[in-house]
């Protein structure tokens, strides 16, 4: 690395990591690249925000209990208060999951590992926008994403696509082969049963090969047929309740053709074989490489970096640990000029880290993320949160960041010196202009607000 070591350390912690806590840049300074590489943990994966937290099966069960309660109350002519229930569910469970995740981000010493993990959580988005999935986002990340972040992409794809959170979020759990026994049975009972192509489409478009890979509507429908039967165990299905369950009776029989290749497998293996090929596709390698480079380096990423990442992906069979190492060792990722504008979550988390505090209650984080358009666990679509500066740097958002920075400064400063906090937070990235403005602030609180709103803190 040709960079000055102090600057490299500041970049390591603020661009690859989630922002510096006091003292962190000094620790990274010995060898910034090694500091990052040590956080790559094949075999173990990411940190877990809540060891021993509720499983997705428990949460699915809980939601079904709610539906039963609701029906029973209706049948008995009692009033059932859905708002009261929703509050318990969402603030109690999903809120606790989100708070734990935010605390981990605010306090971890392995913040490159957590940023890497958050990238994958966003790549495979499950959103709380549906009541049914509101309490499953946390368990989804915990079970399907975090264990695999330094493993094989193909394994993460299967874990995501078979997780109850994803199966419910993208309507796969209800998709039934039109010519199956299950469809006949359901329609005799007066229920509608048929194909739902939502998950199949988004796997192709968002998770793997990308929209430019040249597939057609027919490919999507064929893949959706191959995926029929990927479902969730029902209330009375014993050990399978609330867990992934393949239902042979709902699986559309026969060979399928997806993107020119014929898949003659029976049952669950058919969709697995399609996913394996999707994961191995050069289109997927390119799609992932562009997204990674865009997230870590620039909205308009350097082609040389994309090429390196793509090469590693294809050469290692989608080994994500190797991909992380390639990213760290690419000189293109260390450009001195910070160009990435922080998303609201990144801004808030890095502010806490700079002030050496962590959120204690959900409103500590929920209110500001809501105001800035990034509601907890509630990405607007399966595409996840946007990456581009233009989206997050709206005039209204800058005003709200400014108001929040003042509030935070007033609450947490406790007589500390904002000049020192600025040194700790930005190291060699702190410009003389901003350092001077902080030193001239009328109050210490104003000094901290200037730091948090400075161009070099807003960007990474």
């Amino acid at each position, binding site marked *: 690395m040709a960079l000055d070591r102090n600057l490299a350390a500041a970049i390591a912690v603020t661009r690859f990591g989630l922002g510096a806590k006091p003292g962190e840049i000094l620790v990274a300074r010995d060898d910034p690249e090694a500091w990052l590489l040590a956080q790559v943990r094949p075999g173990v994966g990411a940190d877990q925000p809540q060891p021993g937290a509720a499983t997705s099966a428990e949460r699915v069960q809980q939601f079904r209990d709610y539906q039963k309660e609701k029906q029973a109350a209706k049948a008995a002519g009692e009033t059932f208060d859905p708002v009261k229930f929703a509050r318990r569910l969402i603030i109690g469970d999903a809120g606790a999951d989100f708070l734990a995740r935010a605390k981990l981000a605010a306090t971890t010493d392995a913040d490159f590992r957590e940023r890497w993990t958050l990238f994958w959580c966003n790549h495979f988005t499950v959103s709380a926008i549906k009541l049914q999935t509101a309490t499953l986002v946390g368990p989804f990340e915990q079970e399907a994403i975090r264990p695999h972040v330094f493993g094989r992409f193909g394994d993460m794809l299967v874990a995501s696509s078979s997780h109850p959170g994803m199966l419910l979020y993208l309507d796969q759990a209800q998709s039934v082969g039109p010519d199956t026994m299950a469809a006949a049975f359901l329609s005799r009972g007066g229920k*509608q049963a048929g194909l*739902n192509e*939502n998950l199949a489409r988004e796997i192709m478009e968002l998770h793997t090969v990308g929209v430019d890979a040249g597939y057609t509507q027919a490919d999507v429908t064929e893949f959706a047929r191959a995926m029929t039967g990927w479902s969730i165990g029902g209330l009375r299905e014993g050990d399978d309740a609330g867990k992934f369950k393949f239902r042979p009776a709902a699986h559309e029989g026969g060979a399928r053709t997806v993107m020119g290749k014929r898949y003659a497998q029976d049952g669950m293996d058919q969709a697995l074989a399609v996913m394996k090929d999707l994961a191995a596709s050069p289109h997927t390698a390119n799609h992932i490489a562009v997204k990674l480079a865009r997230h870590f380096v620039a909205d308009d990423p350097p082609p040389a970096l994309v090429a390196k990442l793509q090469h590693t992906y294809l050469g290692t069979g989608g080994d994500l640990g190797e991909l992380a190492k390639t990213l760290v060792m690419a000189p293109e990722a260390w450009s001195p000029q910070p160009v990435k504008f922080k998303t609201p979550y990144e801004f808030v988390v890095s502010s806490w880290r700079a002030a050496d505090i962590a959120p204690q209650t959900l409103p500590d984080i929920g209110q500001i993320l809501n105001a800035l358009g990034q509601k907890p666990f509630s990405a607007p679509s399966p595409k996840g949160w946007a990456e581009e500066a233009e989206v997050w740097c709206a005039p209204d958002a800058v005003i709200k960041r400014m108001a929040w920075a003042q509030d935070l400064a007033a609450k947490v400063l406790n007589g500390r010196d904002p000049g020192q906090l600025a040194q700790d937070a930005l190291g060699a990235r702190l410009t003389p202009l901003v350092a001077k403005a902080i030193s001239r602030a009328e109050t210490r609180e104003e000094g901290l607000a200037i730091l948090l709103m400075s161009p070099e803190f807003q960007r990474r």
Partner: protein
Amino acid sequence: MSNAPTPPALSLASLSRRQALAGALGVGISVEFLGRKAFAAADGAMETRKLVVVICRGGMDGLSVSPPVGDPNYAALRGSIAIPGFDQPGGALRLDGTFGLHPALPSVHRLALKGEARIAPALASPDRARSHFEAQDVLENGATAAYGTDSGWLNRALQVMGPGKVKAISVGATAPLILRGGVEAASWSPGPGAGRDTRLPGILQDLYANDPMLSRALASGLATEAMAKVANADATAALTDAGDMPGATGPAGAPAPAMTAPAMNAPGAEMAGATNAGGPALQATLRQGLPAARKLGATLAGFMIQPGGPQVAAVSIDGFDTHANQGASQGQLATRLAYLDAALDGLAEGMGPAWKDTAVVVVTEFGRTARVNGTAGTDHGTASTALLLGGALKRGGIVGDWPTLAQGRLFEDRDTAPTIDMRGLFKGLLVAQFGVDRRALDTVVFPDSAAVAPAEGIIA
């Protein structure tokens, strides 16, 4: 990053009624666009014309928005999600012999009876891919393909009118693609103001001198902040005068749910807002959805009727991707439409006398399948309905031809077939409202679109 020239700023001294309000912000810097004279005298009436574009994201089901209940194939294709015929319980609100409006759109219907609302029932973008993200991209960038340009057509329209001549605003915490580009647009969403430190904005303005993106966003945000106080007061007054807005007289600036995610039946999306003040706040948020939507629409109008205020606005509403259990007269989609109806009603009310110069267009990226799917919902389709509203409208029937739902007339035997290109509709509005030059429309605003003529006979 764009390097468009910053529009000339006007000093606070030229403001009349707004002076005290802007001054109260204590902002020691220039405030753009307030009180600026937009058009030369020669432009005549265009100075008062207004255009609002509402984007319903997720693929809004045109066959439910304006159900063709008189079409002989409608009921059979739609099955359990068909809207009942006119004069039946929960039935469509009659527009003509074929079309009605969804029963959750009573305000739109009221306007339609006055000749101030019309439908375009078979409208589509030039994109046929059925991907949300590609289709939204094309809707907003105005090109023939996704990712064709990274600016929005509405922004380029402002540019060709002469930068700075017509001001624009987007509602929401993030900036939508349709208004991104060389011309600075304001953005606003309900929430607390700029904070208590009155020195901070001036200090930051200096620090942002070499960061055009942050600098423009801050300046625009501060100007909008000043305007919001007036708009909010005006909105409260307008809705109170109308006598049908209980509780609207609360403090100006009271937070309302973000327009970008109404999430009426999805408490998950309300998580953060819900925690503002614990239990009662959640109940209030869930139950006050419609009044909040009306207030939001009226506040937007409050911005637009101020002298020198924005004449163009863009608003997004999420949540129209109804793959499963979309409902008919009631249910998921009905809840979203009720929110849309309330926001449009508030907008019309808030405009007051300016409504006669206003045109509103409500569009979505694509429609949905003509047939109900296996999960009582609909999948991604092609043509959908656009709503046109405003006192500027010319009275008339449907805009564009109706291809019918007859066998053989469906696009790819699946979707409503498009009969008009949405670019033609947008062009027609830009010509009639602002006199935008045809050549600029064909080449700059909507590249390579000479073959798409501006729709005529929409505006009186």
